[in-house]
Every structure is written in structure tokens, then in C-alpha cells.
């Protein structure tokens, strides 16, 4: 039907008679990094849950083609507290090589040394890295992330951005990351979607110059454009004027 691993047509989801998603079209190519931003209540979580097939009791319609092999990273790391880090990473995986694959994934998020730790012994950032390892060890064709860095401090977040870029470059899954942080979206994604009242109202290709000289200007332009779509005035722009 489509050459895209993720292909969505006219997707609708309703809670009672209140529509949450109204006719969303979406396709994501393999290896493409797409960010989804929107105000709270715009339907971001509903869309993510629909894509991950977690909305059992929600009424809806539309065409939804997603790879069986998808992984979802939540805002909270959601590690099982009674399992050590490595067991959390390979939860649900079987076979003789599961442990070694888990260790390799932990290596990738630079946490190989904490394989035997309990989740409560890790910092918030470390827990979220374990959650990332749990996602990539499954080699997903589609990586969904629901505000994965929303609960982390600014410095940890920068580290996580590097890690996220590294991972998406190496494994090339189709990525859809929900975020409320416009800067984060511009920085990580090749394409930013803006969701408003259950509809995608903008689809913006992000093309940042490879050199640093004009980066600031272009970044600021994207920022202003996206914030305007979200109905927020850019405070930096006001200051400049």
C-alpha cells in the first residue's frame, strides 16, 4: 500500500462525543526523525497511544499501518522496580543471546557498568537511558517517544539529545517524538508537525545550515514560526524589537 513504514490516513479518535483526533494523515519514512508539537489538550497523547495500539476502549476510524516491531519511550522511564537494570532492558525477550544484546544496548547508552543495579539506585537521566536501551534492544522499525525528556533537567536533556541523535543515526528507525519544547523539536527533527485540536495544522521541514555562522538566524526563524502556530509570542523576538 505504501513505501512508508508508518502510514496513517484520515485517523479519528473520539472520547464519547468529543473528538480528540480528527482526520490525521501522517507518513514517516524509515530513518526519518519527526517531532510532534502541540499545546496541551491538542491530542498528542491520544495520537501516540493510537499509533502504539494502546487505546483499546477508544472509538475511532481511519487507516493505520505501523510496523509490528515498534517501541515506545514514555515520559517516565517506567522501569519495573523489582527488576535489575539488565532484566528491565531485556524484559519480554527470550533466547540465548538476549542478555548479550541487552548488554550491548546498555553499552550504547553508556550504562554497561550499571547492569546489575536496581532502578531506584539510578538518577532520573540514567533511568531514562535504560528506557532508551530497552527500546533499541528490540531494533524497532518505529520508535515512538512521548515527551521522553520532559522530566529531565536542562543539562541531562542536552546529553540525551546527543544520545538520541546517535541512536537514530545508527539504527535508522522511523522516529516520532512528542515534545512540548520547540527548541528540542527544531534541534532533533528533520520535520516538525504541529497538532492543534486533533488536526495537523503544519508540517515544517527543518533545514539547518551545516555551518554555525547562519545557524542562529535560521533556528530563530523556525522558532518564531512554530511558536506562532502554537499561539505563543516569541519572547526573544519581543526583546529584539
Amino acid at each position, binding site marked *: 500500500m505504501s513505501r512508508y513504514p508508518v502510514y496513517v490516513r484520515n485517523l479519528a479518535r473520539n472520547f464519547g462525543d468529543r473528538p480528540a483526533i480528527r482526520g490525521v494523515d501522517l507518513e514517516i519514512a524509515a530513518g526519518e526523525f519527526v517531532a510532534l508539537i502541540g499545546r496541551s489538550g491538542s491530542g498528542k497523547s491520544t495520537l501516540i497511544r493510537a499509533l*502504539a*495500539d*494502546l487505546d483499546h476502549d477508544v472509538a475511532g476510524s481511519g487507516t493505520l499501518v505501523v510496523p*509490528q516491531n*515498534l*517501541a*515506545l519511550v*514514555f515520559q*517516565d522511564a*517506567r522501569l*519495573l*522496580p*523489582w*527488576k535489575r537494570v539488565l532484566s528491565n532492558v531485556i*524484559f*519480554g525477550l527470550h533466547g540465548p543471546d538476549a542478555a548479550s544484546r541487552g548488554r550491548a544496548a546498555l553499552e550504547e547508552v553508556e550504562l554497561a557498568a550499571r547492569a546489575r543495579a*536496581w*532502578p*531506584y539506585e539510578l538518577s532520573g537521566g540514567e533511568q531514562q537511558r535504560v528506557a532508551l536501551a*530497552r527500546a533499541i534492544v*528490540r531494533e524497532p522499525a518505529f520508535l515512538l517517544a512521548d515527551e521522553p525528556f520532559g522530566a529531565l533537567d536542562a543539562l541531562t536533556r542536552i546529553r540525551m539529545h546527543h544520545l538520541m541523535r546517535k541512536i537514530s543515526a545508527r539504527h535508522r528507525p522511523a522516529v516520532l517524538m512528542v515534545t512540548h519544547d520547540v527548541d528540542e523539536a527544531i534541534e532533533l527533527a528533520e520535520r516538525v508537525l504541529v497538532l492543534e485540536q486533533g488536526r495537523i495544522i503544519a508540517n515544517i521541514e527543518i533545514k539547518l545550515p551545516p555551518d554555525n555562522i547562519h545557524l542562529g538566524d535560521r533556528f530563530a526563524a523556525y522558532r518564531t514560526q512554530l511558536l506562532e502556530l502554537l499561539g505563543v509570542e516569541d519572547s526573544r523576538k519581543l526583546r529584539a524589537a
Partner: protein
Amino acid sequence: MTFIAPVPPGTDSRTSEEEARPSPSRQRSQRRLSVGKSHPYGLMIGPVLLMVFWSWGARSGFLDPRVLPGPWVAVTTSWQLLQEGRLQANLLISAERALSGLAFGTLAGVAAALITGLSKTGGYLLDGVVQVKRAIPLYAILPFFMLWFGIGESEKIIIIAVAAFMPIYLQMHTSLRNIDRRYVELAESLRVSYRDFLVNVVLPGALPGFLLGLRFASMSCWMALVVVEQVNATAGIGYMINLATSYAQTDVMLVGLVVYAVLGVTSDAIIRTVQKLVLSWQPTLGA
């Protein structure tokens, strides 16, 4: 200008200074609102004081030995009963009753909780029955149990098992039903099998509830033991107490009480140790 001389280790240099001029930060200091750190043996203070008072009362004649003999009597009489062989024989029988009752009750409680906790149909069929049964006090069904199961050893074990069943069932059923939604979602998003979900999410999640139930169950167990041994027993600690009551042997009655106390405290300590070992993933119970 004051010069501060190096203070040799172990000396408290603050005391004299603070007396001289109270530091301003002291006045602003916030009253500590939490209970504070507890002393490792602090819990012993109350019982020890009680023992001191009890000993004093018995020694001074304030307490009539026919009403309550002194605490040392428990030791001397125990020794006497041990030499006669009566204490260990009765203790063995009581312990056997309590432990087999606890074992059967635990098995039945876990099985029933799994049925009602994991399956909707099981819950509809069984949970209501258990809740109704729960409302009936153990003492009240005792006559029926005697009618059905006689007054022998099996009736005693069945009653203890029923007493142990309740807390295990209730705690475990509740924790099976209250598995965190977030973990269910996680397991669904990872597409794990139902078996993996059960083994890795549901059962470990219900373990703290089960262990809490086990602690309550061991307590109900000893309680039920007292009840069944008051009625038509020919051996056991309760029988020993009953017999002593008929002959007004307060010292033997006292030994019986002490044995019950030791059994209760010991079994609780054992289960708490198991709890600590098994739940080491919990920061509150861990290191």
C-alpha cells in the same frame, strides 16, 4: 581578634563558646518536624520498664502471686516443665497445628486470590462469597465446623487454615487487582506475552501484598490456635493453660502466655526478615 587553636580530636570546642554568646542562627532555627532518627534498641525500653514494674510488684507483695506471679516464675516453671517433658510435648503439638494450618491457609489464600485477581469470571464467582464469609466472625462458625469436621485434629487445623486464609487472600487479591496501569501499558507496548506479563509484572507486583498478608496470617494463626485449644483439646499449649486454670496453677498459666508471646514475636520476626530479603528492590526496605 581571637585565634582559634587546633582542637585535638574528641574534644568538644563548641560548648563553652555557645554558652558565652548564643549564635544568632540558633534563634531562627526551625523546630524539627519529623520524628527523628530512632535508637536501634529504643523499642526495648517500654517492655523493660514493664518488667521492672512487674518484678517490683511481685517482690514487694503488691501483686498477689495467686493473681500474677513474678516474671522469674515463668523461667523457673518453664525449666521444671521442660524437665518433666510437658512443655516441649505440648509446644510441638501446638506448633504443628499452627504451621499446618498456616501452610494450608496460605496455599488456599494464594490460589483463591490468583483466581479472583486474574480473571473477571473468577472474581464474580468467588470474591463475593469470600467477602460474605469475611463478615462472619471465626468464633461464630466454630459450632458449625465442629458439626461438620468433628472435634479432632483436622477440625483444629481447618479452623486455623481459615483464619490464615483471610488476610492472605485479601492482601494478595488487592495487590493483584491494583497493578500499576503504567506497567500494564509498558508490557502492552513491548508486545510481551501474557505469561511474561504475569511472571514479570503481576506476580512480583503482588509480592509485597502477599508478604504483608502472611504477616497478618501468622498473627491470626496464633489467635485461632488459642481458640481451638480452649475447646476439647487433650494436648497443646492451650490445653496446658486450661488444665492449669482448673488447678489454679498461675505459674503454668503464665508459662503458656509467655510461650504464645515468644511464638508470635518469633514468627513475625522471621517473616519480616524474609520480607527484607525478598523486597531488596524497594529503597525503603533495602540498604
